[in-house]
């Protein structure tokens, strides 16, 4: 072989070659994404399945019904119980009405949601993922539709593998059409949170709703159909950051769905024969019932894993099998890692292999009392208590803030340019932009006066006479009244320097008074 630069490739005694391989050497490169394997979850039945139906019923009911609830707020405000009024920048939640500057309530809710997530995850693991996450709820719903139309696991596998017959075409069309309808209803329900639901429904049906309504429905239909129907477990495994975050929240005292291999191993499909031969036998009969019901398509017996959303359907499946075999339930169960480790230590002794005889009564075959069974006490430890206390404290603070909140608010902005104006008679005038917020859906009569600025008079822009007393305003319901306020102090009572004082607004009828501190600026040379 001829080389263009012999000096570089010829080995001389000075150079050394290394026995090394690139980490991504061409021969062993993996594709970035594993090809997707089709999952056909089998229908499970049991207490967790019942609980999941219940959660689905409750969450979907809340989602679909909430916009239709009415709440009377009088003639000047919408009567929808929950309404995000983007156009008028108001958020209504039953008896609460929030203005944009009160966004801290939303921030507080987000903080509570965050700490609530910590609390729930550190106690009961990924309960959010398994029961309440919209992705889980909708996938469950879509799977129910699929099962209803195409049949359970085996029928679906057969259908999927089979040729495209008229029957398959019909079933598939029916399934996707139903999914699309659910998607449309999902997107359709969403928009009712942002406008008066009955009006908007009529507008949508008669094609008179704004374009953004249809765009929102289209977008949410697409995402619901794609995520719930087509992508399903791929969303949880690849798209969602939640599992990573939640995984970091777990500790050895958190409940996770656990395969108790300390009683399951060694697993055997021929348990009776193996027992007769005197071999050690665990409770697991390797029936794979836990795998076929899993909506994520994983085997929980491989241990805790990222894909597991802890929906506990494998517990239902396994409990069913155990009951039929006349064994104690809970081969797969909610358990904490610390309990599991204790039981593992008991079962393995000094060795590394599970010995079924160490955890069973030799006479009855029942599990020994030394087994640590996870109960609700297992999850109570300092960390969960700290989260709980923090969560309650923020909740109480928000409730208190809401209770003490007044529906009258006041913003004052002192003029920056000019800070002050000197007048002919030597008096000084300051200008203020005052905003009086009437945050209730009712008319209101308020008085505006100054406190702590002797010798001052107030007037409005082009608003006639000055007064040393107070000005009266009528506030429209649920509106902001901007007031351009001029404050004048005569030469005889002029303060020597910048003077703080209060601008006070009071509603005598409602007994509400709000005041804001501002300053009266004077020319420096008078100091």
């Amino acid at each position, binding site marked *: 072989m001829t080389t*263009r*630069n012999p*000096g*570089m490739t010829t080995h001389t005694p000075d150079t050394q070659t290394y026995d090394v391989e*690139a980490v991504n050497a*061409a021969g062993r490169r993996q594709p970035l994404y594993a090809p997707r394997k089709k999952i056909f979850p089998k229908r499970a039945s049991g207490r967790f399945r019942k609980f999941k139906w219940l959660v689905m019923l409750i969450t979907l009911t809340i989602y679909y019904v909430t916009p239709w609830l009415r709440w009377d707020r009088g003639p000047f405000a919408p009567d929808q119980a929950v309404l995000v009024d983007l156009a008028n920048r108001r958020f209504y939640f039953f008896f609460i009405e929030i203005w944009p500057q009160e966004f801290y309530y939303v921030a507080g809710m987000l903080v509570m949601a965050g700490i609530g997530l910590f609390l729930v995850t550190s106690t009961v693991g990924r309960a959010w993922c398994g029961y309440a996450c919209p992705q889980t709820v909708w996938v469950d719903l879509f799977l129910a539709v699929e099962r209803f139309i195409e049949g359970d696991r085996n029928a679906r596998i057969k259908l999927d593998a089979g040729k495209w017959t008229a029957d398959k075409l019909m079933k598939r069309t029916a399934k996707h059409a139903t999914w699309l309808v659910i998607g449309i209803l999902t997107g359709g329900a969403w928009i009712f949170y942002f406008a008066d639901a009955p009006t908007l429904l009529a507008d949508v049906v008669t094609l008179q709703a704004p374009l953004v309504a249809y765009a929102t429905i289209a977008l949410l239909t697409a995402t619901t159909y794609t995520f719930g129907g087509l992508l399903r477990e791929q969303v949880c495994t690849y798209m969602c950051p939640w599992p990573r975050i939640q995984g970091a929240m777990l500790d050895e005292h958190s409940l996770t769905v656990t395969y108790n291999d300390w009683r399951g191993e060694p697993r055997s499909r021929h348990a009776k024969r193996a027992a007769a031969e005197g071999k050690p036998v665990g409770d697991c009969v390797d029936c794979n019932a836990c795998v076929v019901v899993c909506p994520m398509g994983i085997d929980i017996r491989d241990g805790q894993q990222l894909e597991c959303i802890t929906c506990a359907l494998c517990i239902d499946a396994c409990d069913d099998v155990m009951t039929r075999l006349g064994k104690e339930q809970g081969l797969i169960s909610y358990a904490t890692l610390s309990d599991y480790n204790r039981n593992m230590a008991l079962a393995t002794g000094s060795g590394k292999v599970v010995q079924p005889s160490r955890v069973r009564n030799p006479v009855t075959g029942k599990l020994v009392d030394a087994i640590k069974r996870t109960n609700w006490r297992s999850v109570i430890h300092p960390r969960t208590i700290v989260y709980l206390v923090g969560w309650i404290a923020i909740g109480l603070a928000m409730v208190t803030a809401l209770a003490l909140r007044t529906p009258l608010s006041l913003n004052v902005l002192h*003029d*920056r*340019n*000019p800070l002050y*104006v*000197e*007048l*002919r*008679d*030597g008096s000084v*005038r300051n*200008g203020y932009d005052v905003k009086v917020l009437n945050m209730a859906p009712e008319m209101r009569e308020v008085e505006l006066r100054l406190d702590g600025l002797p010798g001052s008079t107030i007037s409005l*822009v*082009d608003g006639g006479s000055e007064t040393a007393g107070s000005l009266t305003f009528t506030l429209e319901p649920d509106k902001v009244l901007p007031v*351009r306020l*001029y404050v004048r102090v005569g030469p005889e009572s002029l303060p020597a320097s910048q003077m703080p004082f209060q601008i006070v607004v009071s509603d005598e009828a409602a007994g509400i008074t709000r005041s804001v501190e501002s300053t009266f600026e004077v020319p420096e040379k008078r100091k």
Partner: protein
Amino acid sequence: MSDKDVDQVTGVETTGHEWDGIKELNNPLPRWWLWTFYGSIIFSIGYTIAFPAWPMISSATTGVLGYSSRADLHADVAAARAAQGGMLEAVTTTPVADIVKDDGLARFARAGGESLYKVYCSQCHGTGATGSVGYPNLNDDEWIWGGTIDQVYATIAHGARSPTDQDTHFNDMPAFGTDGMLTAEDIDRVAKQVASLSGMEGGEATPEGEQLFADNCAGCHAEDGAGMVDVGAPSLNDKVWLYEGTLAALREQIALPRHGVMPAWGARLGDAAVKQLAVYVHGLGGGQ
């Protein structure tokens, strides 16, 4: 051409480019990149057909969609006009004194006046309308040519000493010093007399000063120094001064008066704009 040169470590063909023994591998482009690149090319062809793109000799291709940024601007301006909902027309037809009385119209005019002020007036009168030496503060209650809404309107429309407007405000205070009408001592006396009217530091009322004031100043500035709006003679008995409120400035102004000039805006901006400006300035706090 030469034979294929394959890099032995990676097993990838090289491009044949070599720098100091370092060879460039001929790895294929990432496919997503390549297709994005092809897609961009296809898109750009459609784009140059649809939109103005190719420069020709005198202009450029116009594009089949007929888009132009100028038309866009006109549409935006028309939309903004429409959004005003006829308010501007109402301002045009309503006398300025009545605009102030109409709450909605006044708010519209004030907002429009504020932005006009920032463009045309702030250079001399300041962004806060506080003026500076020689440029009146528009916030206070001292008005050389009158502070009613109609007077403010007239001043903005016709200006002061504007060479382009027949109806402009005009006056001409004599240069008592440079024209030799008063001696330096008399100027000092009358300056002190004027300063005493408003209690300015250094002011001193004397019989001579009083006589000098009566003979030379009271004709325009009135006997008590209150000034006279009709001739634009500023009041001398208050705390607001156009040219600094010091004795030295007073002497200077008596000896050789400075005469400010303000353009007449009526012909330049149109009546509606002047009305909005008048409402804004009148509403700054000192309007009468």
